[in-house]
């Protein structure tokens, strides 16, 4: 039986692996989540049981002594290390997830802590909380979790509530789409025949167009920017769960994670070094909650290994022709029990951002910020709407669009210059209209600099230039390093800010303008703190020549 610490490590990996830098992490724990983790880490549970029972037994054994919660040992003096309280927090979230399933109405604090006591296998104390867990004690554990995520360039959904909901809001905030809503979505997917290969953005576009959803889901679909990314990610997960189960009904509990999923791709744009010709490749997203495995994509011309290139994404593979953009692609994937295919959804457009790790490259990477230059890859059937957006002073771009063939066009250096999208009808370009709408009034841009690893960390002496972009004439920026304020001043939007981020440390940048806020985190590391990546001769690499592979000083006959 896995120990508490093993569950703790598994939960951290499950929540953070596959999360792109800058994204929000939900510590969503349900029977389904625990089964998926358990099956991937330790195989099928014994008999017809669920991994939930094993998880709770491990938590109770380590965190409960003599019918009292023992939590002080989880608080770590070294905040850079993996927090020890994540499995305990997971049990708190599990208690909330069951409540959400049972009752559609109000959640009362006492009811919640009664559930938590049940989960911890102990009676409720006289203070209305589990004995040994004084009011607010769990906030320290949530704070450690948030700090740990921030150090890795990730955000957390953990938020306290108001009044009597202050503490129960933390576990409830870990679930973006409650189980009841997920079941509604599964039924919806079954009725409308949504295919497994759609990405979250495509699912959201179809849901918006078709309507008829509950209020909570409709509200989620109005979100923009990074908040919309979270919704897209959650929708894609529900769709994949639905197809993995093969049924709209609730999944058979012991088989809950046995189904396979698909890797959904975006596109990655490179240029030929000599001709400048655009070359498109598949850019697979690393699904959250799926453990990395040695997988290969079976292309018609042979297999290509999948390797994680940066948090949330695999290295680009294969190639994409203009016709593939219209029709989509699907290839088998081998090497994992949990992934069986790689798909490129058929879409009418792709909004590509500059790859911050590769000058001159563009990729379908998360939601653009205000004032960012983009490359719009779009089918010409949307051209009249795009031209209309330009006429209405929403968009501007450089030069005439480049023709790729198959009806596909590239708009270079496209920039959203207007914020009056609600006043301009979307026409046939509904999804594109949603995607181009700025996520808010302002963004913080980080430009240049040298990144240490693909996790958002910059090298000492090579920090990026900071620029606040806003749809207003003024903004205010505060910068802190390791929680100590180092800069606080009004800044002119669009101009480089004279703030130096030289010293190694964890920086947080917060910009305000007209009641809106934008936050960016970044880490600066010393050269001496860089750690060599694990690399062996068994991995793919080196150059092939004369029937041999030469990699550094190593020579292998092929």
């Amino acid at each position: 039986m896995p120990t508490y610490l093993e569950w703790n490590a598994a939960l951290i990996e499950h929540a953070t692996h596959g999360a792109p830098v800058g994204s929000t992490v939900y510590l969503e724990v349900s029977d389904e989540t625990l089964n998926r983790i358990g099956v991937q880490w330790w195989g099928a549970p014994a008999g017809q049981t669920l991994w939930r029972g094993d998880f709770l037994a491990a938590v109770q054994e380590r965190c409960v002594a003599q019918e009292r919660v023992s939590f002080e040992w989880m608080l770590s003096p070294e905040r850079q290390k993996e927090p020890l309280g994540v499995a305990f927090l997971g049990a708190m979230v599990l208690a909330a997830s069951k409540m959400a399933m049972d009752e559609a109405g109000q959640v009362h604090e006492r009811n919640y802590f009664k559930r938590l006591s049940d989960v911890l296998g102990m009676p409720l104390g006289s203070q209305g909380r589990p004995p040994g867990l004084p009011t607010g004690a769990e906030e320290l554990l949530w704070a450690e979790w948030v700090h740990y995520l921030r150090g890795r360039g990730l955000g957390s959904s953990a938020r306290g509530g108001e009044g009597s909901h202050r503490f129960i809001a933390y576990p409830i905030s870990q679930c973006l789409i409650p189980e009841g809503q997920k079941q509604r979505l599964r039924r919806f997917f079954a009725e409308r025949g949504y295919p497994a290969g759609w990405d979250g953005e495509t699912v959201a576009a179809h849901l918006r167009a078709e309507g008829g959803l509950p209020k909570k889901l409709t509200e989620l679909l109005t979100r923009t920017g990074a908040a919309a990314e979270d919704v897209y990610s959650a929708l894609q997960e529900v769709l994949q769960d639905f197809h993995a189960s093969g049924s709209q009904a609730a999944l058979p509990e012991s088989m809950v994670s046995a189904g396979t999923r698909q890797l959904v791709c975006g596109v990655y744009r490179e240029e030929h070094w000599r001709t400048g010709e655009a070359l498109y490749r598949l850019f697979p997203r690393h699904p959250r909650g799926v453990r990395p495995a040695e997988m290969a994509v079976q292309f018609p011309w042979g297999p290509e290994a999948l390797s994680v290139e940066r948090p949330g994404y695999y290295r680009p593979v294969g190639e994409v022709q203009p016709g593939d953009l219209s029709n989509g692609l699907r290839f088998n994937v081998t090497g994992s029990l949990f992934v069986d295919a790689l798909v490129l959804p058929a879409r009418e457009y792709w909004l590509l951002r500059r790859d911050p790790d590769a000058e001159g490259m563009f990729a379908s990477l998360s939601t653009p910020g205000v004032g960012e230059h983009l490359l719009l890859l779009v089918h010409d059937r949307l051209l009249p709407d795009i031209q209309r957006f330009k006429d209405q002073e929403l968009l501007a771009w450089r030069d005439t669009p480049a023709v790729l063939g198959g009806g596909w066009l590239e708009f270079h250096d496209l920039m959203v210059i207007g914020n009056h999208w609600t006043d301009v009808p979307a026409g046939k370009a509904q999804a594109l209209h949603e995607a181009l709408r700025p996520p808010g009034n302002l963004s913080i841009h980080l430009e240049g600099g040298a990144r240490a690893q693909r996790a958002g960390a910059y090298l000492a002496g090579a920090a990026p230039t900071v620029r606040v972009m806003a749809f207003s004439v003024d903004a205010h920026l505060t910068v802190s390093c390791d929680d100590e304020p180092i800069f606080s001043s009004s800044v002119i939007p669009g101009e480089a800010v004279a703030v130096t981020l030289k010293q190694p440390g964890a920086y947080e940048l917060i910009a305000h303008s007209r009641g809106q806020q934008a936050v960016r985190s970044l880490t600066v590391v010393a050269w001496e703190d860089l750690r060599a990546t694990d690399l062996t001769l068994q991995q793919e690499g080196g150059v092939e020549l004369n029937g041999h592979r030469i990699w550094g000083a190593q020579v292998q006959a092929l």
Partner: protein
Amino acid sequence: MSLAGGGGRAGTRWFRAYNAYGKPAVVIESVARFLRQENLTDTVVSLRVERGATGEFLLFLAMETTYPGVVPEDVEDALSDCRHLLSPLPEPLTLAQIEGLASGDLQIKALGQCLEYRQVRRDIQEDPFDTEARILMKDAELPVGAGEKLLWFLSATGTGPWSSLRAAGAALGILDAVQVTRLVRHLRLLGHLETFPAGRWQVSPPAAVEVTLPGGETCRFLVGARDSRRRPGERAEAQPGGPDRVLVDEAGERSVLFSPAGSLVEALPDAAGFVTSLEVLGSVNERALKLRQFSGEGFVSCAGITGDGLYELTSPDGRSVHALRRGRDWRRGEFTALRFLTLSAMNLLGPWRFSADAQELAVRFDERPPELYERALVLCSGLLPGNRGGWLVYRNVTAPLVAGLAGRLGLTWENT
């Protein structure tokens, strides 16, 4: 970036209509200028007019105020100073209502909440794999410790595009692309790194190389990925132009490569085979390019393609590449390899000089062999070649290795 706006009154969006007269485009520009001058664009965020309107028309102002229909007094006073805004309709309107009042599409003029389009600054495209001759002649020293720190960066990242390597180099004070290219070449020679024509680089797996010194004793040095941590018994020797040579007493858990130079020589093809391994370029349009041909000493202008040889091809945008013409094929590779193959074809290569006593091999600077062959010489010692009066001197090289390498390349060598 410049930006229109001011005042800061976020709130409800609604519309007010005015009876306007004249040419709509002129009226729109005049009103927009007025609103910007008066700093009213946070309240009046856009103007609309029916497309194709003439003479008498409705001009709609999109307003953002706390309450619909209620304009702050100071803004109301300012608006009444504009000669085109004297006849407002009394009721506040919604978007649907103004669309109902217009017989066609509405043209929008955004005022507040807009950004000025910025032109993108384009960096000059570098081709990191076309090592120019001047790199090899340039003997500027790199900043102290830069090679070692760059290796730490490469080892932490594993693989990446050329731009990331350039950015890390710049952070270390190596701003000149030529110097970065030079350092990267040295990292390849020392067995730390590979680079690929598509523009990516990849660090090599860590290993300890074990070689026998002229005195018979054993020497072990590290190749491949590493970071700043040193284990007991590890000693770093600085060397100009590259990372440290790290000597180790024990290999530990690292794999040990016994005299890998010999294995490398065995694996390499002869010169003819090497030519066929080079990347083939597509067609070369000699009319669209400026051509210079390698004479054996330098590049000289030529009117057209005159036969086999090494050419410098410069496109109208100023980008140059070096390419080897053999028959109908154009091939591309690192410059030293192309030059060596050309000199070989011209019978201009001199013999190598070998000192059996010192176990040193001297190669003329301008005749250094293709890089993978040169890597075998460097891996004999883990040291970059010394530079002695126009000769590159490689250390701890044995006679059998010289014989094998010279045989592969069709060269002669003299025992001095």
